[in-house]
């Protein structure tokens, strides 16, 4: 475990097949250990599905999910070495901030003194010191996501999945949160999969980018190369950085 947290664990999807209604997905990808990978793609391309498969909220019809080399395909979500932060509904509205974080230590909320200390420390680390007794509705949107991150800290799982958790925050606040994620990741050497629509977000903290289209990984690579003018075609078409001139023409008033 100690070894893991120092070097991180890799996440690997081996020909993982899944279908939802009409949509079919086949993912074959490896996510680098101890790095932040941005997962990008159009709405409905399968980004969230990919994260759900890693987290264990969905079970694949074929293929294997490996985390740190271990086959976790048959493990229930709560047994996987994974924490996930959603876009919303990360907190139970009727439980205090402390209790919400404490659930990460014990699902029956029976917390030992040591657990409480960890919760306290995690709240301080995420800038929520002194707000443990509050209810989620007394917090701002950004603070709520900080509570979710505090819970990630107390759970101490080596993989962190972020499903557009900051999409509803303003630009400045979003940058703060991204930087916090980057710091926490560096401290714990977590392997982070980060779904986002914003190339800026990815550029800010991601080491790698995986681009999903049509239910499979269409392109992947280091972030630096991805956003350059000679990045993958499929991504440039999506981001709208392809052929600036033609866009310019289209925008001309007619």
């Amino acid at each position, binding site marked *: 475990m100690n070894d893991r947290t120092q070097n991180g664990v890799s996440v690997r999807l081996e020909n993982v097949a899944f279908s939802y209604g009409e949509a079919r997905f086949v993912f074959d990808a490896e996510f680098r250990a101890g790095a932040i990978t941005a997962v990008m793609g159009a709405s409905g391309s399968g980004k969230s599905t990919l994260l759900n498969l890693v987290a*264990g909220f969905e079970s694949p019809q074929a293929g294997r999910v490996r985390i740190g080399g271990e086959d976790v395909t048959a493990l229930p979500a709560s047994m996987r070495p994974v924490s996930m932060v959603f876009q919303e509904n990360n907190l139970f509205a009727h439980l205090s901030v402390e209790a919400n974080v404490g659930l990460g230590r014990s699902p029956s909320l029976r917390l030992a003194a040591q657990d409480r200390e960890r919760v306290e420390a995690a709240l301080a680390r995420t800038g929520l010191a002194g707000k443990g007794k509050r209810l989620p509705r007394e917090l701002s949107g950004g603070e709520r996501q900080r509570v979710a991150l505090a819970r990630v800290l107390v759970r101490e799982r080596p993989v962190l999945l972020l499903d557009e958790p900051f999409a509803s925050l303003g630009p400045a606040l979003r940058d703060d949160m991204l930087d916090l994620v980057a710091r926490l990741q560096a401290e714990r050497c977590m392997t982070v999969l980060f779904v986002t629509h914003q190339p800026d977000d990815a550029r800010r903290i991601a080491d790698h980018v995986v681009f999903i289209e049509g239910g499979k990984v269409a392109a992947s690579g280091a972030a630096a190369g991805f956003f350059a003018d000679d990045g993958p075609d499929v991504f440039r078409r999506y981001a709208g950085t392809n052929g600036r001139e033609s866009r310019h023409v289209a925008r001309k008033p007619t």
Partner: protein
Amino acid sequence: MTRPGAPADIRIFAGLAALAFIAVLVCGALAGLAVEGAGDLSGALSAFDPYLLRVARFTLWQAALSTLLSVLPALFLARALSRHPVFPGRGFILQLFAVPLALPAIVVALGVLALLGRAGFMADALGKLAGGTWPGIYGLSGILVAHVFFNLPLAARLFLEALQTVPSDQWRLASQLGMGARAGFRLIEWPALRQALPGVAGLVFMLCVTSFTIVLTLGGGPAASTLEVAIYQALRFDFDPARAVALTLLQIGLTVLVVSVLAWLGANTSGDANLQVAPPRRYLAAGGAETAINAGLIVLALAFVAGPMVAIVAAGLQADLGRLAGEAAVQRAAATSIVLAFVSAFISALLSLALVAARRALSSRRRGGRKRLFEHAVETGAGFVLVVPPIVIGAGWFLVLRHFGDLFAVAPAMVAAVNAVMAMPFAVRAVRPAYDAASERHDLLCAQLGVSGWNRFTLIDWPVLRRPLATAFAFAMALSLGDLGVIALFGSDSVQTLPYLLLARMGSYRTQDAAGLALLLGLVCLALVLAADRLGRERRT
């Protein structure tokens, strides 16, 4: 959500258990009827005689008349109320219109008799008007008055709700174009009302076809008997099982027909108007003559609805309430009623929660594919009682159980079980939106954190669901407390509920006692429904 390696979902087992309970209750009754019918086939067939056809015809006839007399005035009443969105007492009138639904039928029957009966408050005035002695209101006219008392306010509230869905832009436009009252009705109000009409009329018709207590207490004889009352009489008085079987089959056929027509019309069979007391602003001012007509309409309706209520209170206060409260029989009946209603409400809330949870579990497991039969069953399970009315279930079990020992000893179990199932359509509607919303928010998070089973119920679900569950509970309790259906079949001197005692006192012409009991029963039921309503409302804010 399918979770690899997760233990099989307990919610689905709960749903299965709830369905099994309902199925045993309904199928046991149907099996009892089938065996009885098969055992005496010629008897059952020969029971389809002119009397039975007359009863069936009367059942439909009184329901049709009641519907017409409730729905038609309700259209104009709703329009009048919507034309005058602000006047003193408007909010009070709307709340008053919600009261009849909360009152037990036997209480209302008593109120109608206290007002319009031979010795009623209005008897003298009506006698002078008729030129002679007032014969009292019994038979068809009594049934109609009581049915209209229940359904006119209900229909008016539903129509008013329909009128309030008209966007205020349309009213602004109408006022800009200078539309008069007539044009406004034809072009704006009528289209909204017409859309609601089939559903409302269907609902009222359904309620009147299956009306038991009103017809039993106000029908006053074989000339004005419906199928449900005839079933009761065949079992309790004539003891003619063959006839009971024939009547029951006819009743089921009729309700299946009505429910399918209702489903086809898209009616909301639990009839509940989500009225905002503060209506949207209206831009069409009513003229002087119209205002006078509307005011007249509203006052008339108010008098009609308030009359029996006032009579219940006035007659009840004339009774010797102190003596009544001290009477051992009354105390015993009250205790029996409360215990049975409590058990019944508990079962109802539990069954509803199980069905709602199983439905949710199945629909999230299905992931956009087609529904399976089981999911359909879980979804509509609460509605079985609409097709197979309580009296029919009671009749079936009555026929089965008479072969096994003391029929009246099983009365408590029968009453609690049937009333629980009867309240389920309402209970499910109170619980389901809250459950689905909570599940939507919490399922993934709980799966991830490993919060499941008892932990999940106490930490996560109970705090969110206790209000809607309390609403369901209070409503089911009120319904069960005031019900005179199964207990009419199974009641005896040893097992009496308050409504049963009330019926007995009415039967032995101890009218004052009956009035006193009715007042008590009415107040308790009203308090419970108000509590249910309040619990449900606060959750939403």
